[in-house]
């Protein structure tokens, strides 16, 4: 009964959400309110208002590039792929962390768009922030498959790791992360704790944890099981609500914590046990 009610609410809400998202706010021009400051020159921040013409398909990045090309060439932006793949163009758009190339002007209400640098990242200039610390947190998680049973140098005994589609599904979505930092910018714990690895890094720890080719489970668990580690996540869910790639970092973090607490089945251990039973 209650499951059905929840399902009904879910379909209704999702439909409303989709309609809201797909509703076009048609306009022919917008005013970009751009955050400006060159920090190394010691400038105080201010906003520049720049009017640019837009079409239905114009993204915020398109609009910014138009402004840069025709109005003020000194605007600092970072971008590369223009197709939500490289993760360079993250910025706060109307107060929420988003990819500029993945946000259409027509999905935003009003005719003024405020663009600011991502919060929680050290600010460099205009819309550009410093990702050094963010990448360092990612690196801390040893983001690569490590298998102690394999020896890459012994080429004659190299074997293939068979992975079933089910094995793949356990980690695939987490491997879609483009390291854009939107989740890091939305997280309320990152907002106050510089040592907290953040949603991106923690969900990458889960990505390798749940990969059955990887054997560095204990090592990675020891890294996240820290005073400033995984326990500082309080499931505010904001990371998952801003992630543009469907990574759902909050899911990865809670599942990893479930394993640390011994709440969840450990697929790797079960597989190992079955192997051993077969052998004996």
């Amino acid at each position, binding site marked *: 009964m209650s499951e059905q009610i*929840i399902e009904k609410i879910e379909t209704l809400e999702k439909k409303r959400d989709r309609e809201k998202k797909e509703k076009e706010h048609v306009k022919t021009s917008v005013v970009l309110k751009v955050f400006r400051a060159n920090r190394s020159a010691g*400038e105080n921040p201010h906003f520049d208002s720049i009017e640019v013409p837009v079409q239905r398909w114009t993204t915020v990045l398109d609009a910014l590039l138009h402004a840069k090309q025709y109005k003020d060439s000194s605007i600092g932006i970072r971008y590369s792929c223009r197709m939500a793949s490289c993760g360079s163009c993250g910025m706060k758009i109307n107060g929420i962390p988003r990819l500029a190339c993945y946000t259409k002007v027509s999905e935003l209400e009003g005719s003024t768009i405020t663009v600011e640098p991502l919060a*929680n990242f050290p600010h460099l200039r205009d819309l550009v922030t410093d990702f050094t610390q963010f990448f360092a947190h990612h690196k801390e998680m040893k983001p690569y498959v490590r298998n102690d049973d394999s020896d890459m140098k012994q080429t004659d005994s190299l074997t293939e790791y068979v992975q079933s589609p089910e094995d793949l599904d356990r980690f695939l979505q987490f491997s879609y992360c483009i390291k854009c930092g939107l989740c890091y910018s939305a997280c309320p714990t990152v907002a*106050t704790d510089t040592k907290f690895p953040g949603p991106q890094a923690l969900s990458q720890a889960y990505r390798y944890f*749940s990969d059955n080719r990887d054997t560095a489970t204990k090592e990675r668990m020891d890294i996240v099981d820290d005073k400033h580690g995984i326990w500082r996540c309080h499931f*505010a869910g*904001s990371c998952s609500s801003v992630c543009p790639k469907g990574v759902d970092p*909050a899911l990865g973090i809670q*599942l990893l914590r*479930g394993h640390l607490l011994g709440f969840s089945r450990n697929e790797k251990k079960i597989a190992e046990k079955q192997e051993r039973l077969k052998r004996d």
Partner: protein
Amino acid sequence: MEKLSDRNNREGIKGWLNPSRYGWERVSYWLQRLTGVGLLAYFVAHIFETSSLTQGPDAWAAMLELTQTPLGHLILLLVIGMSTFHSVNGIRLIFTQGGKGLGNPGRPDYPYDAVSLNYRQKSGIWIALILAGVAMLYGASVLFGGE
């Protein structure tokens, strides 16, 4: 001269204060913290209140008088609401934060709805809010109902 903290650009406590930008889960986070701290304050005040008994029945009676004022009633009403929300939502969070009731990883597909922000979780938050409201209504009817 700019402060280094400006450049660092962390949202700080300000990041906690506005729960409206990111959906129900952020509201839950904010309320759980607010009610947790509120209950802690009540807990300390409560110990102080009941400890007055050691100074004899008169001190105790004087302390009880304080809670019989409209403001005292209002504070008790708030405590009823806070404790109901905090414990109901707290029980949900114990499961959630242990990875239960969140759904399974799968193949992401546009528009990329995150499974962890599902409606079983959201309805848990709503139920906690509704129960807190009901408890406060009942509390109000007892406290302000008169005899």
